[in-house]
C-alpha cells in the first residue's frame, strides 16, 4: 500500500486528535524556550491523550534534556517532541499480509478483553490476507458469548474464508485443535483464531486461553506463530494491566489498537510501547472492511502532531 494513502487513512482517523493537540501544543510553546509553564502544558496534553503520567513525565524530561543541548525555539521544541514520540512508538516490523509466512498453516491467535473488537479485527484481517492471495480459515473459539459464532460467520463469508465452529458452550481448545487439523488437511495458508473476550483478572479464563494456545501447538509445530492482543484505543491506563496479564498468559507478539477513528487519542500506545516493548502491529481506524491498517510509528506520530 502506498505510504501516502496510508497516511491519509491514519490522518482521517486521527483528525480529531490532531487538531486539538496541535492547537494546544502550539499555544503552549508560543515563547521561544521550553519554560516550566510550557513543559507542564505539554505534560498535561500528553496525559489527556492517555499517554499516562509516567510516560508523559519521561517524555517531557527527555524533551528538556534534548533542548538543553540544542537551539531552542517553538519550531525546535516541536521537532524534538516528534522525535521523542517517534523513538518510543517506532521500531518493530510493520505488519505485512503479503510477507512470507512462518509455518503452514500460519496460526494467529487473537485475544483481548470484552468488547475491544476482536471479531471485527479478525474479519478485517481475513480480508487483508485474502487480498494478498492467501487462503484463510477462521476458528470460532468464542463459544461463550451469545451469537459470537454467527457474527464471525458473516465476516468469513464477506472475506471469502472458511470457518470451523462448534456449539455454544463447547471447549474452545477443542475447536482450536479441530481448526488447525482442518487447515492442515485443506492446505490452508492462514488460521485466525477468535477467542472469547475475557477480563485479564479472571484466572480461570486466562487458564482456558493457555489451553487454547497449547492445543494449537499440538497439531502444528510452533503455532501460534503470532499472538495478537486487541486493545481499545478508548481504554485508559488499564490497557497496561491488560497487556501485562495477557502477555504473561499467552506471550503476546503484537498489539492491535482499535477504534482510533473516535475521539480517543490512543496515547496509551506510547505507554504500552515504553513499558512492555511489544510492538503495535495494526490499528483500526473505522468500521469499513479495509479500515485495519498496519501500524507505523512515524506515521502515527506524524498524524498525531501534524501541523
Amino acid at each position: 500500500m502506498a505510504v501516502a494513502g496510508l497516511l491519509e487513512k491514519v490522518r482521517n482517523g486521527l483528525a480529531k486528535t490532531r487538531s486539538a493537540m496541535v492547537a494546544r501544543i502550539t499555544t503552549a510553546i508560543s515563547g521561544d524556550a521550553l519554560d516550566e509553564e510550557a513543559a507542564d502544558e505539554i505534560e498535561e496534553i500528553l496525559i489527556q491523550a492517555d499517554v499516562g503520567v509516567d510516560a508523559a513525565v519521561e517524555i517531557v524530561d527527555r524533551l528538556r534534556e534534548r533542548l538543553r543541548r540544542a537551539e531552542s525555539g517553538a519550531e525546535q521544541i516541536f521537532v524534538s517532541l516528534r522525535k521523542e514520540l517517534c523513538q518510543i512508538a517506532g521500531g518493530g516490523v510493520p505488519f505485512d499480509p503479503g510477507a512470507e509466512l512462518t509455518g503452514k498453516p500460519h496460526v494467529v491467535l487473537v485475544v483481548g478483553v470484552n468488547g475491544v473488537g476482536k471479531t471485527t479485527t479478525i474479519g478485517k484481517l481475513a480480508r487483508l490476507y485474502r487480498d494478498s492471495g492467501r487462503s484463510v480459515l477462521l476458528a470460532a473459539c468464542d463459544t461463550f458469548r451469545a451469537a459470537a459464532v454467527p457474527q464471525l460467520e458473516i465476516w468469513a463469508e464477506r472475506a471469502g474464508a472458511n470457518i470451523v465452529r462448534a456449539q455454544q458452550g463447547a471447549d474452545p481448545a477443542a475447536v482450536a485443535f479441530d481448526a488447525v487439523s482442518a487447515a492442515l488437511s485443506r492446505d490452508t495458508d492462514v488460521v485466525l483464531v477468535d477467542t472469547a473476550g475475557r477480563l485479564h483478572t479472571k484466572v480461570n479464563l486466562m487458564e482456558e486461553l493457555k489451553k487454547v494456545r497449547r492445543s494449537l501447538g499440538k497439531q502444528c509445530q510452533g503455532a501460534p506463530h503470532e499472538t495478537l492482543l486487541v486493545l481499545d484505543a478508548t481504554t485508559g491506563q488499564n490497557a497496561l494491566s491488560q497487556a501485562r496479564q495477557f502477555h504473561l498468559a499467552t506471550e503476546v507478539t503484537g498489539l492491535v489498537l482499535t477504534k482510533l477513528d473516535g475521539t480517543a487519542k490512543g496515547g496509551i500506545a506510547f505507554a504500552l510501547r515504553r513499558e512492555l516493548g511489544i510492538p503495535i502491529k495494526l490499528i483500526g481506524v473505522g468500521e469499513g472492511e479495509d479500515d485495519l491498517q498496519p501500524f507505523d510509528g512515524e506515521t502515527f506520530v506524524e498524524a498525531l502532531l501534524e501541523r
Partner: protein
Amino acid sequence: MFDRLTERLDDVFRKLRGQGRITERNIDESLREIRRALLEADVNFQVARSFLHAVRDKATGREVLRSLTPGQQMVKIVHDELVSLLGRQMEPVKLADHPPTVILLVGLQGCGKTTFAGKLALDFKKRGRPPFLVAADVYRPAADEQLRTLGGSIEVPVFGLAETGEDADPVEICRRGVEAARKSNRSVVILDTAGRLSIDDEMMDELVEIRALMHPHEILFVADSMLGQDAVETASRFYERLAFTGSVLTKMDGDARGGAALSIREVTGQPVKFICTGEGLEALETFHPDRIASRILGMGDVVSLVEKAEQVFDGEKAEKMEAKLRQEAFSFDDFREQLQAIKKMGPLDQLMGMIPGAGKTLKGVQLDDNAFVQVEAIINSMTAKERVQPQILNGSRRQRIARGSGTTVQDVNRLVKQFQSMQKMVKQMSRMKPGRMKMSMPFA
C-alpha cells in the same frame, strides 16, 4: 475494583500520619500523590484538578477537626469529596406512570450494551415487572441474534428484524417494538441500539430521532469502566445530543480503577445508576455512590454483600435452615445447598472485595471458584445416608467417595473435618442467638 486507588491513597495517608498537623507542605505532598493516583485511575485531568481544589480548600479551611489526626482528616475530606463528586445518593430507574416504561440504551461500540440489556431485563423480571427487549442494532453482524439468545435464556421476549422484516431501520424497529410491548402488556421496554462514535453525526441523528419519537423515560449511557481520558469527551457529546438521564458502568469486575465514573458524573451531572460486575446476567448492581466512595478508601462494602446474600438465600429456605440448625440436623445436603447459593452470589474474589479490610490482606491471593467444584463433587459422591449421618463415614466409605469424586482420601477427610467444626460452630451460634438468622455462611 478501585483497589489500586485505595492503595495509593493509603500510602499518602501513611506518609501524613505521624505529623502533628496539616501544613502547607504536607498538603502539597499528599495532593500530588492524590493527583497522581487519580490520573492513573483514569480520572479526567480537569476533573482531578477541580477535585484537588476542593480537597485543598476543605483541608486548609475551618472544617478541619482537632480531634482527628491529619491522616484521618484527609481520609474524611477525600471521602466526602468523592461522595459529593459521585452524587451523594443512589438514584433508581424512573418508571412510567402508564406502562410500558421505555428505556433507551446508548453508547460506544463494545461497551457492553447488549449484555447490560439482558441484565436489566432479568432484574426487572425478578422484581415482577415483565420486560420486553428490542434489538435495534442492524449494523453489527449478528447483534440481533445475540440479544435473542440472551432473551431466550431468561425467557424474555425479543423484538427485532425477524418481526419487522429485514429492511426495517432502527427507528422503525423501536417504534414497532414499543407498540408490540404495549399490546402484550409488558411493563418495561428496553431498546438496545448499535454502538456508535459520538462524532458520527449520522448515527447520532438516528438516536436523536428515536428519542424524539419514543419519548423514553430513561436514556442510559452505557460506558466501559476502563475508559480513559476520553470518557469526558464522549460522555459530554452523547449528553449534548441526547440529554441522557443516567449512566451505567460495565466490566467493573476487572481491575480498572474506574476513574471514568467520577468523570462522567462530573461533566454531565447525571447519576451513575448501575454497575456490571460479571459476565453472568445476574451480575448487576445498583450504584451506591457512598458505598463506592467507601470502597475507594478501603472501608469495604458490607451493605452490597448482605443485599447479594438476601437475593439468593430466599427467606423460606433460610428459616428452614435456621430450624435445622437449632435441631442440630444440619447435613451435607444443606451444606451443598448453601454452597450453590453462595456460588450464585458471584465470583468469590468479588465477594471478598466487599469485605472491609479484605482487599488489603488478600492482595495477590487468588480465590478459585473451582474449589467449590471439588467440594461439591465430594458431597455428590456420598450416599443419601452418608450426607445426613456423616458419622458413619468410615475408611472404606471415604475411599469410595474419593474415587467417585476424583479426589484423594485426604481431601475427603479435610472436608469432613471442616464440616464437623462448622457444625459445632453453628450449634454454638444458634444457641447464642436463637433469633432470625438470614444468612448463615457455612465457612469463615
